[in-house]
């Protein structure tokens, strides 16, 4: 019986294992050094906030793995011997495989800041980071202030987490406006104001110079690059993005760049070795996508695809229309298709932007200014139907059609106020003045 070994029990690896089990009778082993059972990484924040307990982040009950004959092995793989197809664990054990899948996800970026390895300095990615945060920031007596470095999705989540325990937060963001490398200006502005309304000390265009320690090697303050200001704090969260978690592969014969290099079939340079999820790096980007996609959904999709290949139906990773979502404190965000921020926006991409007067809801519709083709939508504070936008993108609808049919895409709960009329009016006005 062929033995498929998957390193990493995140969404990519687990989706793959489930689908292999559906398609075949192969022996499946999932290896993890992080946690005994699969949990939803994106839900870690809710454990700290007390919305859920850790066990609630586990999508499957403990008996699930036995029942589906998926072996779980806890351990840290130190070396992969691809010639004899053997994994070497840090505690000396070995494991043979026939097919190997690397699905080890990401790790938080550290940019060589002085003091970045002090006690009380942490990312917010692994289960261990959560435990660390619980240790250093259990309440606002132990942690009088926290400083977060890096204005992305994880940074704002960490700010929300600390805020839930009334720990004052200073949020250092390198960009001139929150996440404006991705979000158009209007949206980014709403989030800036929303963050400040939650009494989070948001510092834009601000970089970290260094982290200072007390005599015991614990963080005591940070120094701001631009002003030299010293901010006293007990915890520093480093949330300046993530990169593939593949240090343990560097000594093997598997080709790596920033991530594990894979072709469109998610195969590495070594036969029978594959990589999926955050740690996989495409040789060439697919469409507008980045070569490394550190997103829950793409990890899952790669798992779904690779199961086919491993079970004898070799097919390409060929994702459909881009979509993503997030929640910024109380404001939900969804995106379908492509809407670019200022940075990297294609020359032909134009935007229609509508904002509600309460400053918490808006949409941005991107379209081709030459052909009027609908390219994508960002929506804040209004839920939209994935399927509808996926269909419209496939049908290559134009922007007029999309704006005039927005009501069909609305996914807000029943009895919510609807804004389609306002949006259409605003769209017509903008076109007249343009």
């Amino acid at each position, binding site marked *: 019986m062929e033995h498929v070994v998957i390193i990493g029990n995140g969404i990519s690896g687990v989706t793959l294992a489930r689908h292999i089990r559906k398609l075949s009778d192969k022996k499946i082993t999932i290896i993890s050094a992080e946690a005994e059972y699969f949990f939803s990484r994106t839900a870690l924040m809710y454990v700290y906030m007390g919305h859920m307990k850790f066990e609630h982040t586990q*999508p499957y009950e403990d008996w699930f793995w036995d029942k589906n004959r998926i072996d779980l092995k806890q351990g840290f793989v130190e070396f992969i011997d691809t010639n004899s197809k053997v994994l070497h664990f840090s505690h000396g054990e070995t494991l043979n495989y026939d097919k190997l899948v690397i699905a080890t996800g990401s790790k938080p970026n550290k940019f060589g800041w002085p003091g970045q390895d002090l006690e009380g300095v942490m990312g917010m990615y692994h289960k261990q980071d959560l435990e660390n945060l619980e240790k250093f920031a259990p309440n606002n007596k132990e942690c009088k202030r926290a400083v977060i470095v890096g204005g992305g999705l994880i940074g704002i989540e960490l700010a929300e987490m600390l805020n839930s325990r009334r720990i004052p937060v200073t949020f250092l963001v390198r960009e001139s406006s929150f996440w404006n490398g991705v979000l158009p200006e209007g949206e980014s502005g709403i989030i800036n104001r*929303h963050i400040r309304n939650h009494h989070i000390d948001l510092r834009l265009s601000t970089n970290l110079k260094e982290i200072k320690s007390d005599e015991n090697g614990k963080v005591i303050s940070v120094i701001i690059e631009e002003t030299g200001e010293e901010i006293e704090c007990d915890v520093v969260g480093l949330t300046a993005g993530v990169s593939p978690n593949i240090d343990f592969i560097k000594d093997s014969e598997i080709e790596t760049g920033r991530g594990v290099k894979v072709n469109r079939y998610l195969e590495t340079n070594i036969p029978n070795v594959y990589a999926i999820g955050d740690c996989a790096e495409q040789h060439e980007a697919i469409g507008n996508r980045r070569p490394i996609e550190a997103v829950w959904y793409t990890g899952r999709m790669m798992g779904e695809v690779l199961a086919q290949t491993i079970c004898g139906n070799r097919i390409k990773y060929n994702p459909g229309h881009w979509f993503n979502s997030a929640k910024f404190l109380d404001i939900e965000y969804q995106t379908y298709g492509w809407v670019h921020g200022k940075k990297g926006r294609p020359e032909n991409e134009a935007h229609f932007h509508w904002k509600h007067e309460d400053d918490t809801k808006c949409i941005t519709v991107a379209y081709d200014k030459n052909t009027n083709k609908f390219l994508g939508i960002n929506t804040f504070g209004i839920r939209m139907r994935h399927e509808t936008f996926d269909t419209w993108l496939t049908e290559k609808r134009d922007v007029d059609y999309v704006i005039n049919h927005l009501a069909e895409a609305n996914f807000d709960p*029943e009895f919510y106020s609807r804004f389609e009329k306002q949006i259409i009016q605003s769209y017509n006005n903008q076109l007249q003045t343009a």
Partner: protein
Amino acid sequence: MSNKLNHSMSLATPDALNITTKQKIALGLGLIGLFILTLALFNTSFPNKGLFLTFALGLIVIGTIFYSREAYLNKLEGIKNDGVWFKSISSRGFWGWSVGIILTAFYIVLYFYPQYLGLGKDGVANTGLISLFDPLSQLLSGRNASQWFVYGTLYTIAILAFGYKFILKYRHNRYQQIRTVSVMFFQLGFAFLIPEFMYIMNNDLPYYDLKSIWPLNYYIFDEWSVKAFLSNGNTGLALILFGVLSIFVITPILTYKYGKRWYCSWVCGCGGLAETAGDSFRHLSSKKLSAWKLERWLIHLVLVFSVVMTTAMIYTYLGYKSNDFWLTRGVFISLVIGFLTIIFAGVMIFKRNELGKDAKYGAIGFFLVITLLLIMHFTGTTDQLFYIKSGNLRSAYGIYIGSIFSGVIGTGFYPILGSRAWCRFGCPMAAVLGFQQRLFSKFRITTNGGQCISCGNCSNSCEMGIDVRHYAQKGENIVRSSCVGCGICAAVCPRGVLKLENDSMKGRINPNEILLGNDVDLRKLVNEN
């Protein structure tokens, strides 16, 4: 929610975990109110009962209102679940168990020892807690209070005060607000005031909460109840007809259009209490598969019990000859068996594909009931059915299901089992509604394509113990008998994945192996095989 408005003048962050000074004062007011009730319970005789009752209830309501305003109104609108698994009261800690035990004790006394609450029997004046409520009862219906009046008043106040709290908690969510106003309205009007006024108009009519439908209202077709209705002319006849129409006509139509929620989370009193006073405990329901299995057996057994019991009850007081009344024992039993057979045949012919192996259990259940009824018919004498005394069946149901299951366990165990233990495991009305919701209703919770991140907020907040995530992460709509459509899963979802909808029956149940967003050809290949 608005970024422009910012009510809080606080210099610290507004998202408090611990309670503020104002909340402590509010808590104090409420506790003083409860203390007055406790004093009355221990037979303190207050000089001016009306005044003290007003004080007690007023303080409880004002305390709850102030507490809630302080808790929610100086924060931005949004999901307010911070710390629910840390707080002792809402995580089966010391306070959770304490409240659970006190509530359970209260229910036991209420159902089985009302004299300890001060009920005066056989014309003796009330004492204790019940006598404190005499002035209010006199005001409403001109008679002294009973233990049920005390219970009804406290129940209504709980729904109103905590309903207000719930509305503030979800002040960004109009579905939640309207739904809560609805349960507050039905409790105050239908369960509390209207029956009292009906008594004033005609004091022979039995207590009838119009929204309490058989089989939840298991005593409506009891002999004494039916006789009392029928002896009251057209009004009584209309009421009992309404009772029959409620379950056989109104319920199927509304459930088809809106799902079970029209009743369970918009109208029902049990649901109303669970959604308001029970809201802080909703996440405590078990989401294990084993709990679901238990639920399916238990709730349907209660339904079978209730159908057999009611049929037997009605059967015993019907006559043999059609001269007296057209509805004889023979006609009645044929009607019941005919009705059950039609439902069974209909489901097997039109819905067998949706049932899978459950159909077998369903079939067994139906045949069991029908066989029981036939045995009953042929063993039935005037006072014996199944060779046992007919009244025993009815009183067993009343004690074990009506009192212990729905009251003592259902509500007393809120802080332990979650707020809907009765609705989930025991309520026969919920079983009827759920059966229809699963097979013949336009209602579903739609899953939004591939947007689920398996975080588990939905499952965690499901009071009915549905593992919502199990469906959402497969891109599958949620069509479950037990779903009461409270909509909290959709509210807490951080990615906008869930939406309660009434749409067409077609494509309502849509299991997916590969979710939206992946390769279209792969989706075709896998999902259509």
